[in-house]
């Protein structure tokens, strides 16, 4: 029975004749799925040209009846960006075999990519009827609902998906929902579970680290970021976040070494150059700081944080005219931050424009709720103008804020600021105020700008404020507010 083989070869081209109606003997039909395996093998190897050739051949032979060939053709179209065409092909597939959940899933996916989330959810729901135990359907439904802003439904679907089968992606989307809702604690819960499930996923580790950073839980943040870096030492998000933490602790050299890796991977990242600039600022290399910050500003001209830092460095360099420009640009992008107005006022004071400086201080005092430095600087200006009453009022306002801060956090006050406040207190004859009872320790790492002539400077190192947006753009912001106090 083995000997029929030699005759086999001629048998296959027979399909071309199948259309001739007057043949006595009915021709054999080719098997529709004859080359599906080959199409699939080419497809998974990303050899799309070869794949298309086989598809074409197969479709010709079967007169367009081979569902899988159309299906893969549609997948390739989608990869090439022709989403509309791929959608049409998937719909053809759905006609050829209406019972297949896979086709419906792909139709829905194409609709999703076209941004038709509503239509996509409908098709996914249809597919879910055919195949109820598919995490992918649940997951994608969840993602669609996120885009449709139906977060409750999205959560339900994603939890369903997790119930069917756990995937990192589902955890990430679920975490995103909580972040969209502004619920950091729940998001952290989700990410913790996710990290437990897949402890080597650096994206999960980094995100969790960043969330801890936002909440100010530095120990855990550093732990997770460190883990992420162990598995992937070139993960730039984690490096930037960890680097910014090192910066707040004054480890500028270590941070700089780490930033080198990022500079190789993403040389055009604005937060990177911002952080490098602030490292140099911390090391008192002001020219280098300015050139790095200017590059950051060139890469992201609308980022007020970079402009803020540029303003700060220029103030330190006593380039008040330049500082004025950077700060006013920053205010244009971020008009709701008291410290910015205060810095602007400092610049204006030094540019001998007292009138506008006062206006800026008024705005700063109006906007700021917790930084005593704003009031102190304002008080000094008023005192220098000879308005002791106004100065006193600001001084008392400052005392209130200081008391509040002492109750709520273990923040150290900058010794220079304390000194200045005491001097002013004495001058205003309010006596030795008792607000500075906390011993001031470790004054070494605080930087102060050298000042010529009348200006004395003081700085307050605030707790590093890290990016509050849940987006993964890491942006460290060593905010060091400088203030100029003119002595009497």
């Amino acid at each position: 029975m083995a000997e029929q083989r030699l005759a086999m070869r001629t048998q296959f081209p027979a399909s071309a004749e199948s259309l001739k109606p007057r043949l006595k003997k009915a021709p054999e039909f080719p098997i529709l799925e004859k080359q599906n395996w080959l199409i699939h093998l080419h497809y998974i190897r990303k050899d799309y040209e070869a794949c298309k050739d086989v598809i074409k051949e197969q479709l010709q032979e079967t007169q367009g009846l081979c569902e899988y060939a159309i299906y893969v053709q549609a997948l390739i179209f989608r990869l090439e960006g022709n989403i509309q065409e791929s959608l049409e092909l998937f719909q053809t597939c759905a006609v050829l075999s209406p019972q297949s959940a896979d086709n419906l899933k792909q139709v829905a996916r194409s609709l999703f990519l076209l941004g038709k989330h509503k239509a996509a959810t409908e098709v996914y729901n249809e597919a879910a009827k055919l195949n109820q135990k598919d995490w992918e359907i649940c997951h994608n439904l969840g993602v669609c609902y996120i885009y449709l802003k139906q977060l409750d439904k999205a959560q339900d679907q994603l939890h369903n998906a997790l119930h069917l089968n756990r995937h990192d992606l589902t955890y990430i989307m679920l975490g995103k929902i909580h972040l969209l809702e502004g619920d950091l604690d729940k998001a952290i819960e989700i990410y913790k579970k996710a990290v437990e499930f897949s402890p080597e996923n650096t994206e999960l580790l980094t995100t969790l680290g960043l969330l801890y950073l936002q909440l100010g839980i530095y120990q855990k943040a550093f732990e997770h970021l460190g883990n992420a870096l162990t598995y992937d030492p070139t993960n730039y998000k984690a490096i930037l976040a960890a680097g910014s933490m090192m910066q707040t602790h004054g480890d500028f050299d270590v941070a700089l070494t780490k930033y080198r890796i990022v500079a190789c991977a993403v040389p055009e990242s604005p937060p990177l150059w911002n952080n490098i600039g602030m490292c140099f600022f911390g090391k008192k290399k002001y020219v280098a700081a300015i050139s790095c910050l200017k590059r950051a500003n060139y890469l992201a001209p609308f980022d007020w944080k970079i402009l803020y830092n540029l303003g700060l460095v220029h103030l330190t360099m006593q380039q008040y005219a330049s500082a004025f420009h950077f700060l006013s640009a920053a205010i244009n992008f971020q008009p709701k931050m008291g410290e910015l107005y205060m810095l602007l006022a400092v610049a204006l004071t030094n540019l001998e424009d007292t009138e506008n400086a006062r206006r800026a201080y008024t705005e700063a005092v109006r906007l700021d709720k917790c930084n005593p430095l704003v009031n102190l600087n304002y008080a000094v200006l008023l005192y220098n103008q000879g308005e002791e009453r106004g100065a006193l009022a600001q001084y008392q306002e400052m005392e209130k804020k200081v008391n509040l801060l002492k109750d709520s956090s273990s923040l150290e006050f900058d010794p220079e600021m304390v000194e200045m406040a005491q001097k002013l207190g004495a001058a205003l004859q309010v006596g030795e105020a008792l607000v500075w009872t906390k011993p001031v320790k470790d004054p070494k790492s605080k930087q102060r700008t050298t000042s010529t002539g009348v200006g004395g400077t003081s700085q307050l190192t605030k707790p590093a404020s890290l990016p509050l947006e849940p987006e993964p753009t890491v942006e460290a912001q060593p905010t060091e507010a400088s203030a100029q106090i003119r002595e009497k």
Partner: protein
Amino acid sequence: MAAASSSDSDSGRAESEASSKWLDAHYDPMANIHTFSACLQLADLHGDGEYKLVVGDLGPGGQQPRLKVLKGPTVLSESPLPALPAAAATFLMEQHEPRTPALALASGPCVYVYKNLRPYFKFSLPQLPPNPLEQDLWNQAKEDRIDPLTLKEMLEGIREKAEVPLSVQSLRFLQLELSEMEAFVNQHKSKSIRRQTVITTMTTLKKNLADEDAVSCLVLGTENKELLVLDPEAFTVLAKISLPSVPVFLEVSGQFDVEFRLAAACRNGNIYMLRRDSKRPKYCIELSAQPVGLVRVHKVLVVGSNQDSLHGFTHKGKRLWAVQMPAAILTMNLLEQRSQGLQAVMAGLANGEVRIYRDKALLSIVRTPDAVTSLCFGRYGREDHTLIMTTRGGGLIIKILKRTAVFVEGGGEAGPPPAQAMKLNMPRKTRLYVDQTLREREAGTAMHRTFQADLYLLRLRAARAYAQALESSLSPVSATAREPLKLHAVVQGLGPTFKLTLHLQNTSTARPILGLLVCFLYNEGLYALPRAFFKVPLLVPGLSYPLETFVESLSDKGISDIIKVLVLREGQSAPLLSAHINMPVSEGLAAA
């Protein structure tokens, strides 16, 4: 054969020959072998201790399927195949001496079995049961008890909801036009309807002994989402297992009669794990990507995904580890070095590397001149450790692992990444910058004041110019509420004749504008226009009306001037809007 004429220029590439673990035995870029790892097999086909390479070759472009047998660098025999080979396997069929393995080639719905390289047996997959309703319909058609139109309707009904899909015959019928149906039914009604499936993958499974040279069964994966286990002697189906999707890669261990574990990577991106007694998959790995290779290393299942990563899984589908690859994985296979007790995974990548991994640890990288699309490792000729690779362009590479070679882990993976040692690319500052900085320190206040004063002046001038433009309707957009208009002009041509096109648009939402005039003001010594003044037709809202006119340049001195366009309302002397057109220099004259 022709392939043997390859250049022996291997000695030229002595780069790191001495330090490398591999000896370059043979490289023929023109070997014309296009295949997959599943179609590569090493076997002692003649029982003489000389191992041959069996290649199920798809031919260039998948056009000339051939069975090739290679011995050393030469092709020993070559025979055409009836259809493209999906997989090749060598296995022992019976206990008799001499113990030469048989060769099985899966192709289409058949398995061709060769012994001593001679055709021995052809196994065809059993026909699938047709849909009974469909069968019934065609039987009615046979007896002419049903007309083609009803037949079509009924068949469509079956296609909509039936569990068992229709046969090709019915599907073809459903595609036909009304006029062709009659003939088709007459031609085909006498035939019984058939459903045939195709083999997608094949592997072997020991029958009842774990020995190296024990009798093995063939395990087939079909397009019909089934796995079949064949008896090695009688070629009957011993077991049939159905899967949720079409199998692409199979990995089996154990013995059929005792206990076996089977992993099947399927087209839906999942990997299903089965045991002997399970009729349904016991565990499932959802990869959320397409698997491109499946290899078992000791007890770990290593899966390559089309997202450029390797994953390790336990038998129960628990993920152990994942490694990212620098490029897409094209093919994978097992490397077994018996003398060292080493099992590792080889992965051929799209960037022309073959990487060898033991679990997560990279053991070695073999660089090849072209991307490797299929590979296998084993005894070839009389050499125990031979690596055989075929490339995308149809080349064949044979490398021999040195007998002294020992794979060690950690090829410079530890420590900080090299990027950390690179210097930061800092922007430099010039002397001029420093000087300017010093100047700013000295005269900052004055600079600031000058700047502010200039800024105020600039704003003032801008506001004045704007007010003036509004007053005299100089702007190309009219601001009046009654005639919201927009005008822009295009000049085409090199000269001396230019074409001037005015695009006039009524920007109101609903109201058409009637009774507009266009007037050109120009230096009559320089330019001539056929009409300097004309009426504008009714302007429908939203549309842009192109109004064309020719401008003749009269001067031969290569000078140009401004032409002013005024749009007026009938009976009003103040223009609604105006545009100044800077005419280009007439190049036609300049050249003459």
